[in-house]
């Protein structure tokens, strides 16, 4: 008996028992929005019912309107690419049992349960959604959609919350952004036209001396995952409020692989919020310095660019 036959038999047995296939719950990584604790549903955000339509109640001819989202609250209507933990709260009709949440035109949406009574808007029920936004979410306006669902599975009208997605890239006159994909201690180094090298510690001159970055001067925002204390950021950004003209060389240095075999990275040169150059590469664990060693070498060259004005 083949596996297919076995499956058919098993399914037949289940059918006889009145059982059905379950719902799938993907990770939702394909979507630009993720809702913690929610159930992911692939596909278009469901079309809402006509709020005027209603459905007859079981015990009377009085139509019961589909559930509706009355209020949605957020700290701000701006969201940054890759933002984590943004909270949305709201209020839905008393008949609602769950709420669908999703970005317009996204690959899927999420189902979250409603909470207890909304003490500010009785007899409505409250709901909340803790959301994460994808790093590659397109900057610009986007609607975050909400729709209430009742116990019968009826979906109420959509309610749109207009959000503005901000680029996570700096809008400085010149910036260099290094991103990578694994929890390793990777460092961004930028050799400036004057021969000094910009590091997370400051400006390093040819003799190895460091100068602390000054207000308004070039700087690297942080040393992510320094010493393998994993912060999850996996990004370092060098900003140049007043970039000098000349040749810049961007280097990527794997200070410590933190137990990982390799990491893939991307370097982007950004001018006034626009990416003008990009390079990708991979750093391997064998490129790291000896444990405890500082950046004894400057890693590998990622790209070179010129600033002419």
């Amino acid at each position, binding site marked *: *008996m*083949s*596996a297919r*036959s*076995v*499956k058919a*038999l*098993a*399914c037949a*047995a*289940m059918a006889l*028992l009145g*059982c*059905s*296939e*379950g*719902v*799938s*719950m*993907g*990770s939702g*990584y394909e979507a630009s929005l*993720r809702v913690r604790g*929610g*159930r992911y549903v692939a596909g278009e955000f469901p079309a809402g019912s006509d709020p005027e339509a209603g459905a007859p109640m079981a015990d009377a001819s009085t139509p019961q309107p589909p559930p509706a989202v009355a209020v949605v609250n957020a*700290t*701000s209507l*701006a*969201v*940054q690419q890759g*933002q984590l*933990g*943004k909270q949305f709260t709201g209020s839905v009709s*008393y008949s*609602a*049992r*769950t709420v669908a949440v999703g970005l317009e035109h996204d690959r899927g949406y999420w*189902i979250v*349960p*409603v*909470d*207890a*009574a909304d003490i500010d808007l009785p007899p409505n*029920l409250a709901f909340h959604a803790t959301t994460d936004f994808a790093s590659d979410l397109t900057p610009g306006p986007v609607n975050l959609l909400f729709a209430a*669902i*009742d*116990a*019968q*599975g009826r979906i109420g009208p959509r309610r749109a919350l207009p959000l503005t997605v901000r680029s996570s890239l700096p809008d400085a006159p010149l910036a260099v952004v290094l991103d990578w994909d694994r*929890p390793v201690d990777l460092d961004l180094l930028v050799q400036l036209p004057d021969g000094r090298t910009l590091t997370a510690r400051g400006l390093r001159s040819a003799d190895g001396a460091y100068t602390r970055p000054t207000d308004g001067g070039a700087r690297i925002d942080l040393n992510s995952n320094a010493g393998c204390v994993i912060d999850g950021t996996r990004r370092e950004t060098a900003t140049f409020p007043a970039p000098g003209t000349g040749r810049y060389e961007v280097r990527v240095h794997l200070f410590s692989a933190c137990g990982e075999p390799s990491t893939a990275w991307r370097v982007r040169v950004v001018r006034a919020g626009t990416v003008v150059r990009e390079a990708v590469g991979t750093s391997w664990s064998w490129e790291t310095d000896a444990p405890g060693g500082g950046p004894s070498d400057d890693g590998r060259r990622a790209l070179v660019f010129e600033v002419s004005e």
Partner: protein
Amino acid sequence: MTKRRHPPVARGIGAALLASSVGLAQPAPAPTPAPVTAPPMPGPAAPVEAPATPAEPAAPPTPVAPVATPAEAPPAAPTAAAPAPVTVPPPSAPAAPPATTNTESSSGFTFPLGAFTLRVLPYLQAQYESHQESEDQLSSDGAHLLNRDRFVLRRGRLVVGVDHRWAQLLLELDVNTQQGVAVGARQAEATLRLPVDDHGRTPASLTFGLFRTPFGHEVLRSARDRVFAENALFAQAFFPGESDVGARVQGALGWFRYAVAVVNGHPLDEPVYGGRAPTAPRDVVGRLGVDVRSERVRLTAGISALGGSGFHAGSPQGVDTLGVRNTSETGTLTPDDLALIQGRAAVRSQNFARFAAGADVAVDARLAANVSLYAWLEGAFGQNMDRGLFFTDPVVTGYDLRGLGLVAGATATLFSRALVGLRVDWYNPNVDGTTSVAGRIVVAPRDVFTVSALAGVQVPGTATRLVAQYDVVRDHLALGTDGLPTDFANNRFTLRLQVSP
């Protein structure tokens, strides 16, 4: 190296190695090709002293897909047949009761060493498995693989026994790739006993070490002999890894079987404390049973009970920490984003009571010349007993959690070469389960219902087989649009190759 019918001394360990202490072994390959003239079963499987084989490193009892933790226990009595590598057992051992069915299995290889007998039984289970919920991703924290479609070495076991007239040593080692390559002991027993009889049974034995918890049928059955891929869910939940560390007294008096043990109460694959003892041993567990045979049928049945205490870990002393939360969503740190999180004094740990009771029955019968059937039914009830799948802790929930499990299954061996089987497995980890829907507490089902069907082929006279199994799982692990738990699509398919003498 010889494979033969065990002399009295050796037979004890044969039983230990292969006999299910309390129950029948599962349909193993029928002894010899000759169905009707089934080879005599050397001795009524030494029910009592049987060791069992353990399970694997607990699988993320992912609520999502209640996977499995296997176990294994020595199967039935040392069997006659089975083309063996080295020695061919003499036609009959003393007073070998007529063999019946397919529960017989090889006893491995024996090496007489003076007053001792060394016995070795290897087996290996490798498989391909496919899960409906599998996804080529990592969990959001990067710590877990969401892909579950894979080839995996489920169990690579080596059971080694040293048998003496008055004593016995048993060691079972395992290597698997369930969660990366892992090597460990699944059983390690040191036993003093009264001499075994011709059937490999002893009226009394005392064992210290790591052994299968003497409860029910599923827990004591060998994964080598169990044709279905894993144990029933309640067995995985109540006894994750099957084995526990402790002391056991067991024996066989005619058709009567008994086993009583005091164990640490933290089975091998229990997360966090598995194989350890955060509390003094308080779990007393045992099984009373019967093992009756006729020419064509063997019946085993028993009742089991466990009483003891679980452990709720307290919290260690904390320290004040500074918390950062970007409440302003400005991307820059503001005073509102900072919060002092005060450390707390240590919180004491607590014990809680738990108990379980169960009953089981199994029948191994030769229905016709070329057809043998193995069927079993087992049920168990437990309070605060789930230590492997859903983790019941009344200190957390504020009330005792009652779980109930039932399993019924049957496998048939056709012409000594083909296997078919069907199993129905139901487990409710919390019969009083509730959930909050729209601010109201409502009763919510939590049970998991699994129908498993299998088909396979086997090499006659051995435990070598290729089996395909499909599990249809109906549970309540997903969120329905009505706010209630609903069925999660997590059926699975397993194609397993087992090689063993």
